[in-house]
């Protein structure tokens, strides 16, 4: 099939370009035949291979998803079932599924808007946790005594569930908005601190020696040695942190109310809209997955040198 890869390529451009301006039909048809032949070049073979690879990763989850939906449908397809079946959800919560960004009224908006509101809170809380966590982790990782003194405290505090922080934070801030942000912050900050500290402690002596010989000042040392060297650890912490803050947002919004996706679930439960809850859960899952992958991707780009050292 690929017997003459050289000739059509040589012929094709000259034959194709001349009639391209809209000349006789027969000529353009001729070029089309040639173009088909060049389509079997190694380039298209590679495209085909990547397509096949993509199918191999996409098709199995889709098949499993279909199977699970089928089982679910069969299990709940009775009039007296306590949970809605997929088909029932599709009809009952159709507007929520097909149009994420509708606005019917102040409290009747699409789930996309609600997710965005929640994401905004997470952005504040997690952003704060990332900055504070990295700086605090760097300080703790630098000093043996700070590590000894603070590590047990961090280890205890990080096991406190997000919801348990809420009363204290409500009492401290006297407002639900900052309270929710604080709960996200306090949930996400511990893994960032701990991982950063471990990363800083694991900076090889070689790099420290290089920094000493070059006489880097503390700020240069922080940016040019510490952060890049500890980056793989820091991003591990950030990835755990973003997962935790997404867990915390739902909990926090259930109690603080407002527009977020967490409050939507609570509200739907109070008015027995089970189908809406299921749709919201899917939204939360997908957004959480995307957030995790996003941080992982940023981490991979940022640490492309360090990881392969």
């Amino acid at each position, binding site marked *: 099939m690929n017997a003459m890869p050289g000739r059509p390529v040589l012929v094709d451009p000259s034959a194709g370009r001349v009639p391209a301006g809209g000349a006789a039909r027969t000529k353009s048809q001729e070029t089309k035949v040639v173009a088909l032949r060049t389509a079997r070049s190694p380039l298209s073979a590679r495209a085909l291979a990547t397509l096949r690879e993509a199918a191999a990763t996409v098709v199995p989850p889709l098949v499993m998803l279909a199977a699970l939906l089928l089982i679910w449908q069969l299990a709940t397809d009775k009039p007296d079932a306590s949970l809605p079946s997929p088909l029932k959800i599709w009809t009952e919560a159709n507007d929520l599924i097909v149009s994420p960004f509708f606005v019917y009224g102040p409290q009747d908006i699409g789930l996309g808007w609600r997710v965005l509101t929640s994401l905004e809170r997470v952005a504040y809380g997690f952003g704060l946790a990332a900055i504070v966590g990295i700086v605090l982790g760097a300080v703790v990782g630098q000093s043996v005594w700070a590590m000894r003194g603070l590590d047990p405290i961090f280890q205890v505090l990080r096991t406190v569930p997000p919801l348990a922080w809420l009363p204290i934070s409500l009492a401290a801030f006297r407002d639900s908005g900052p309270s929710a942000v604080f709960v996200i912050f306090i949930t996400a900050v511990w893994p960032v601190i701990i991982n950063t500290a471990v990363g800083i402690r694991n900076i090889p002596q070689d*790099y420290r020696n*290089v920094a000493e*010989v*070059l*006489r880097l000042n503390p700020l240069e040392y922080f940016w*040019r040695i510490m952060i890049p060297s500890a980056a793989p650890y820091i991003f591990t912490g950030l990835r755990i942190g973003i997962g935790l803050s997404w867990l915390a947002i739902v909990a926090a919004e259930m109690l603080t109310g407002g527009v977020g996706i967490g409050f939507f679930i609570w509200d739907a439960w109070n008015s027995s809209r089970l189908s809406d809850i299921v749709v919201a859960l899917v939204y939360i899952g997908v957004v959480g997955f995307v957030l995790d992958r996003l941080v992982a991707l940023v981490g991979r780009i940022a*640490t492309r040198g*360090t990881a*392969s050292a």
Partner: protein
Amino acid sequence: MTAQLAKPFLQLQGVRKVFSRGGMETEVLTDISLDIAEGEFVSIIGHSGCGKSTLLNLVAGLTRVTTGAVLLENREVNEPGPERAVVFQNHSLLPWLTVYENVRIAVDKVFGRTKSRADRHAWTLHNLDLVQMGHAKDKRPAEISGGMKQRVGIARALAMEPKVLLMDEPFGALDALTRAHLQDSVMQIHARLGNTAIMITHDVDEAVLLSDRIVMMTNGPSARVGEVLEVGLPRPRNRLELVSDARYIHAREAVLKFLYERHRFVEAA
């Protein structure tokens, strides 16, 4: 060489180093005195664990002497600095920077105030060319071979225009062929720039080939300078011609006898 007649450039005066850990004290080096002239190439050789690297770290300022003093141009050395650039045994390139950036960070730090941006760029490239690494300037350390990494490490050290170039077993982790290439490179660079250099090694041939003097260390703990050998071979030196040179053979024999007759390393057996 006339340099040897000049007044001492780098002096070690009665240097003693004790490491203490948890109440236990180990004397690593004792009573090390050495004068090194400007432009001289000195090798320090000894069995492993004799404190060679500690000695180099003392000159680099990475560790402090317990008693005694290290003087560079009559000023005491008590902290690291770019005028005593170190070529580390395992290259110690920063893996997140490219080859160019690894040298540039040193150039920026040392010449940030004295050279313009364009000059620093040119100086970085010049030093990479000196070690024949200009072609790989945009690669990251993970993408180049061990010998190439060590070349970049040497370029980084040279780019600081050090008064003393300190090399800690610079070719220890390389295969024999690459090692020979790099030794020739270092000889050429030394001939061209006339740096003062101290090299730690455990390779007798390498020490004789490169050095003006070889400092032989006794076994630790409490290692001291056993003997100092003047190599006295004319430069430029050619490794092939030297193989049959009587002075080369004599120098080699002297070092070997020191290491394996008088100061055999018992634990290594």
